[in-house]
């Protein structure tokens, strides 16, 4: 019975928390830019409108990929709420990310193609970092199970501070924030029109948007593991992290993929290794 409740909580968390976080993000970003910004529920209006639009697809594979991306993202969050294995959850969300790229690659539009290629480079950049974060958590708690991580008596942040910064890099890329918003981004136009999402339209764009909310929830859950000992600490950590993301988004400009790959791998892998060696030496 409890499991069913957790599944329901996971399925609801995506649209509710993800949507609200995205709405709050847009308001705070607008205030930073001396604007008023849209209402808090704007992301819900956008998705509902898109669901009500005419369905236009380039080919059936694009529609299939949109559904597969949503399914994988929902599954990752539900598995997290069921306190399952971190590695399993990691691979589930990776499959989802690849389906999104696959859908964009089915179209012949050059915008969509370049966006998809850039997204692949982004995935290449953040996936090793996420693996290192998960390895760090394992070295500290001796388990990949979220159940055991929640039982760990002290906050992981104290032992894994550098890995939290590394997770921050992955978070910035995954949330499509500057300076890593290469493949597509929320703000107005970019040089690739809408990059990866150019050929997703109407209801399928809505599915992709909902799946993105689930991804946001998944990453915030991953951040939450770093202060799993009490709810207040967890909430403070998440709010501070997300506000920092918004600030970074507003003070940086979009960079090239070469810079992203070089910088994030150099910084991310170094910080990860330093933290892992420290953990190993402290044992």
């Amino acid at each position, binding site marked *: 019975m409890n499991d069913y409740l957790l599944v329901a909580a996971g399925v609801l968390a995506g649209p509710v928390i993800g949507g609200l976080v995205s709405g709050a993000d847009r308001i705070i970003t607008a205030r930073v830019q001396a604007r008023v910004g849209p209402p808090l529920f704007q992301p819900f*209006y956008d998705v509902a409108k898109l669901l*009500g639009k005419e369905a236009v697809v380039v080919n059936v594979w694009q529609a299939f990929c949109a559904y597969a991306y949503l399914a994988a993202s929902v599954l990752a969050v539900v598995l997290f709420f069921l306190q399952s294995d971190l590695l399993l959850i990691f691979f589930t969300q990776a499959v989802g990310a690849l389906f999104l790229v696959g859908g964009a690659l089915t179209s012949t539009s050059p915008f969509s193609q370049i966006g998809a290629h850039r997204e692949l480079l982004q995935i290449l950049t953040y996936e090793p970092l996420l693996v290192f974060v998960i390895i760090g958590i394992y070295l500290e708690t001796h388990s990949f199970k979220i159940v055991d991580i929640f039982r760990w008596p002290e906050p992981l942040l104290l032992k894994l501070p550098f890995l939290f910064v590394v997770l921050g890099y992955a978070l910035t890329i995954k949330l499509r924030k500057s300076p890593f918003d290469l493949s597509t981004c929320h703000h107005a*136009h970019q040089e690739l029109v809408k990059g990866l999402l150019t050929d997703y339209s109407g209801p399928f764009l809505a599915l992709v948007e909902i799946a993105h909310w689930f991804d946001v929830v998944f990453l915030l859950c991953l951040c939450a593991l770093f202060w799993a000992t009490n709810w207040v600490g967890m909430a403070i950590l998440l709010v501070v992290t997300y506000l920092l993301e918004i600030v970074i988004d507003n003070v940086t400009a979009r960079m090239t993929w070469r810079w992203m790959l070089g910088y994030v791998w150099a910084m991310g892998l170094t910080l990860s290794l330093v933290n892992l060696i420290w953990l190993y030496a402290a044992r």
Partner: protein
Amino acid sequence: MFKSFIKKSRIKSPWLLHFDCGSCNGCDIEVLACLTPVYDIERFGIINVGNPMHADIMLVTGTVNHRNKKVLANLYEQMPHPKVVVAIGACGLSGGVFRDAYNVVGGVDKVIPVDVYVSGCPAKPEAIIDGVVMALGKFEDKVKALRTGT
């Protein structure tokens, strides 16, 4: 209940596609002025998209000529239903001072159906926002027309 929420959302989340159909840039600057912090149309959920496949409202400025009438028709075709078109400025309405030129077809409505006409040379940002709001009111008729197949 969900249907009424979609209906409400259509009005609350219009995404604009702005097409410069050979304008002198006067009207274009006024359209872009709407996006700046002074007018801040994102307050109303309006986003300026560069992709016709994501757009609900098409803003067209400038005269239509024989070169770009196909581009205009193509962009209109790519927008998924329901969609509305707002023609902006004297040139977009009728061809303006260029209407008698040999290469000019005339107003936007010679090529695609126009729902709202915003006059001015150039049109004021306030008038453009007003035109967009008027266009939002036409979504209901568009959906009905789509259902009856007219």
